[in-house]
């Protein structure tokens, strides 16, 4: 676990096994069945003892790659603009409800069920919001039970977002299809609470 990471997103090793990176820590640079490359250039390892000599070349090659990446795979300009505009999401008077459960990370897969609903739980010190995202819409529950207005946000500049209403039992439901980044802004009698941004 890297101490730099301020994980707000569940246990540190939640999904490490998925992309095959879990065993990268143990890579010792000698095993050729480790997926680093195909067998075609296994002979490259014969050069291992000359490592000390090519550090300058490596720096140069890395810099050339950097130039290539800027041309071949840059951050799309419009996308970057969205991040610049996201500054409006910085708000000190809104309480943050942190994600404490995500079925995609902690859930047990149900056999034969391909499109299981995404179950999410967000918490502040005083409030819990359970949310279920399905192909048909969004439903959930505010605890302790109370009425609330719930805005469904999908980006930084949204003047009149779709709104749901939680009844006096705290239940809410809507046939609103959620995809991509989203967050819920809850207005209760006492405060404004915003859930952590997530990708549906």
């Amino acid at each position, binding site marked *: 676990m*890297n101490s*730099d*990471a*301020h*994980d*707000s*997103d569940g246990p540190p090793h*939640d*999904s*490490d096994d*998925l*992309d*095959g*990176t*879990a065993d*990268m*820590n143990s*890579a010792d*640079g000698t095993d050729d069945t480790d997926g*680093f*490359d*195909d067998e075609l250039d296994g002979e*490259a390892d014969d050069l291992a003892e000359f490592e000390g000599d*090519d550090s300058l*070349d*490596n720096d140069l*090659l890395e810099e*050339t*790659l*950097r*130039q*290539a*990446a*800027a*041309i*071949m*795979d*840059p*951050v799309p300009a419009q*996308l*970057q603009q*969205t*991040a*610049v505009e*996201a*500054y*409006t*999401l*910085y708000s000190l008077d809104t309480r*943050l409800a942190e994600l404490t459960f995500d079925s*995609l*990370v902690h859930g047990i897969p149900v056999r034969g069920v391909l499109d299981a609903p995404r179950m999410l739980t967000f918490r502040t010190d005083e409030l819990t919001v359970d949310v279920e995202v399905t192909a048909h819409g969004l439903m959930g529950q505010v605890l302790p039970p109370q009425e609330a207005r719930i805005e469904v946000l999908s*980006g930084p500049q949204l003047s009149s977002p779709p709104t749901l209403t939680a009844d006096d039992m705290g239940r809410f439901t809507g046939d609103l299809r959620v995809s*991509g*980044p989203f967050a819920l802004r809850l207005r209760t009698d006492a405060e404004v609470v*915003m859930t*952590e*941004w*997530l*990708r549906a």
Partner: protein
Amino acid sequence: MDRAAVGALVQSAVDGDAAGWKALVEGLSPLVWSVARAHRLSDADAHEVYSTVWFRFAQHLGRIREPEKAGSWLASTARHECLKVIKSSHRMTPTDDAQLLDRISDDRTPEQWVIESEEASAEAERIRQLWQAFEELGARCRQLLRILMSSPPPSYQEISAGLGIAVGSIGPLRQRCLRRLRVRLSARGVL
């Protein structure tokens, strides 16, 4: 990006300076993008992960305890979102090489078209060859190098956070992967 500089920019953004925020976005966007690309996400998924990460960062801005480590925070958050994308298996991106090569020839960015239409200059061709050689590397070398080549150069802490690998293993991996790339480039006659 230099840690002290990142820390100062985070602080100015926290204090309400939109220019500080913009500079942060400009300085750390390539890192966030590279984490998504290193996980082989499609364009659409990479866009969503990138946006989600920045939206969440804005949300957490006033609560970040170690502002100078914001790069690692972003990289780590991006990685976790990438893993979630991969976990929702029906959206998994195919990674066989034939498909990747198709992508290079069929799905060129505007920048690539510019390069090719302006003139088939030796430099443009060299970059294309380099990129193709990079794309042909094994999955892990592609992953490491894609983050390593973001601009400005990421710290090893940021790379570690973005890939979930130990800081100490990055140096040896880097050597190994660059060596392999060089072999491929020599074979192509590019180096």
